[in-house]
């Protein structure tokens, strides 16, 4: 019992130390600006631009569902223009960043973990180190910066499309006019509604990329280790999104 407990604590401390070591390596790699700047644009395209279709697809249906559920909920004394409020607030503050983050945690986090894990098990990372290149400057920093920059871009487009599909749903399927829908959105609008979601999505991109890179570079074994790392990247990335969402909600809202 005591041995198992001490082993668990030791493993936990070891993991914590590995994470700290990894973060310090990444921070140190930020100095190699000439290396990671040339690689960041490609990662921005792969992480951001290539993720736009799936993010728009998700948000389009989210807007439809949100509009329908809001109209289903807001009955009786509540005016129907609150459908616009629910769609706008829901997408800008919560569903846009979080759903997009969760989707990208699966797509981007898994992609990064699998790619870096494969490089790890095929000793490409060791080759870089052998050639005196910092693998973090080449592999981690461009991905983390690209994800941090492109996540709010993708989230902004996804939220906008979600509002548009919510509006189209409200106008065509509910007895709501365009004026009433946008009256509901504007009625409680604050500038914070926009920057809060965007800032939150920056943190999501940062964490997802960091978790994916960490999991990929910590792969041990062969293909099985790559699979485990990919799964962990998705699970931990999704969990971190929800944790960060709660942290932002507690600290900013």
């Amino acid at each position: 019992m005591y041995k198992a407990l001490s082993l668990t604590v030791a493993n936990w401390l070891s993991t914590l130390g590995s994470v700290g070591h990894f973060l310090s390596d990444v921070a140190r790699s930020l100095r190699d600006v000439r290396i990671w700047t040339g690689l960041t644009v490609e990662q921005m395209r792969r992480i951001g631009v290539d993720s736009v279709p799936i993010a728009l697809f998700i948000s389009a249906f989210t807007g439809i569902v949100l509009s329908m559920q809001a109209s289903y909920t807001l009955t009786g004394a509540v005016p129907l223009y609150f459908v616009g409020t629910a769609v706008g607030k829901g997408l800008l503050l919560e569903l846009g960043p979080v759903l997009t983050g969760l989707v990208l945690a699966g797509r981007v986090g898994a992609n990064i973990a699998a790619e870096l894990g494969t490089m790890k098990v095929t000793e490409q990372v060791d080759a870089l180190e052998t050639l005196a290149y910092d693998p973090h400057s080449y592999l981690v920093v461009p991905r983390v910066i690209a994800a941090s920059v492109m996540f709010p871009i993708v989230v902004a487009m996804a939220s906008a499309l979600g509002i548009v599909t919510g509006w189209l749903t409200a106008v065509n399927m509910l007895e709501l006019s365009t004026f009433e829908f946008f009256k509901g959105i504007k009625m409680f609008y604050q500038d914070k509604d926009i920057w809060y979601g965007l800032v939150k999505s920056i943190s999501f991109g940062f964490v997802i990329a960091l978790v994916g890179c960490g999991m990929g570079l910590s792969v041990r074994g062969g293909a099985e280790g790559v699979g485990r790392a990919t799964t962990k990247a998705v699970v931990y990335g999704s969990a971190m999104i929800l944790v960060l969402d709660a942290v932002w909600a507690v600290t900013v809202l």
Partner: protein
Amino acid sequence: MKRRDELLVGFTILFAMAVVLGGALWLSERQLGQSGREYVARFNTVGGLSAGSPVVLRGVQVGRVQEIRLAEGNWVEAVLSVYPDVVIQGSPAVIAASASLFGEWQASIVSRDSPDISDPNVLRDLELAAAQGDDAWPGATLPDIGQLTAQAGRIASDIGAFSNRIQTAFNDEAVVHLQSSIRDFGQVAERINKFADQQTSILGDVADNVRVTSNVVTSTAEVLQRIMSRLDTATAEGELDSIVGNASQISADLRLAMAEFRDFVAMVNENAASFDRIIAGVDTVFSRLTEGTGTVARLVSDSTLYVEMSLAIQELRALLADIKENPRKYFKFSVF
């Protein structure tokens, strides 16, 4: 490949930024290049008013609340950003109130002289805020839905207490008495109902009589109408004018006769007075005659005087005869 990536990423970022900036401007209803005019309103409390709340003028949104801040003297200042093309005239004041039942607030710009502001609390708050100086518009806050609901809750509690007291007052005994009273009242009502039935019957008879009377009056009216038509015919031929003229002449004659009669009566009155005096004199004469005083009475009652008078008259007659016969004896005329 790298060039293509850069183009794709750049386009995506620019597009997203345009969406974000355009959406933010549109949702916040701000206009680029047109900064709204800022006005400051002074409140005792702003209630639920917050930065971003709409500013309305006669129900039309003309801006937004830019900032809420604490000011000196326990006042709160709200900075209102009003669209530059909006003209605000008169002496403005700001009323902060709930815009709906669901929590949103708005700042309404009103005229301080508006007759719509009748709430004494609002008027008092506006006067207090205005007394602090002209550097800010005076503001007042209407109670929000929560306060009204709390007030309604207190009223409901009072009604509940009142109901409990009524319940206490109307115990079983009181209810029995009340039932007895209601029963008595029912009996009274039944009697009144019977009485009313009787009166209704009587009234029916009266109504019949009235109906008959009305018929008689109707027939009389018809007769009168016929008379009137005849009279009208007579009037049309000028007979009535002649009659009226004659009547007027008679009336004038009568008035003249009455005047003469009044003169006659006056004269008679005067004569009556003279007659009274004559009667009185005669009465005095007769009294003295009766008493035997005076010349006539003595003449009547005393024969000596009568005799002497007869003798004197005889002598006078003899004298007169002598004068006629011998006038020179008594009268002498000479010229020189």
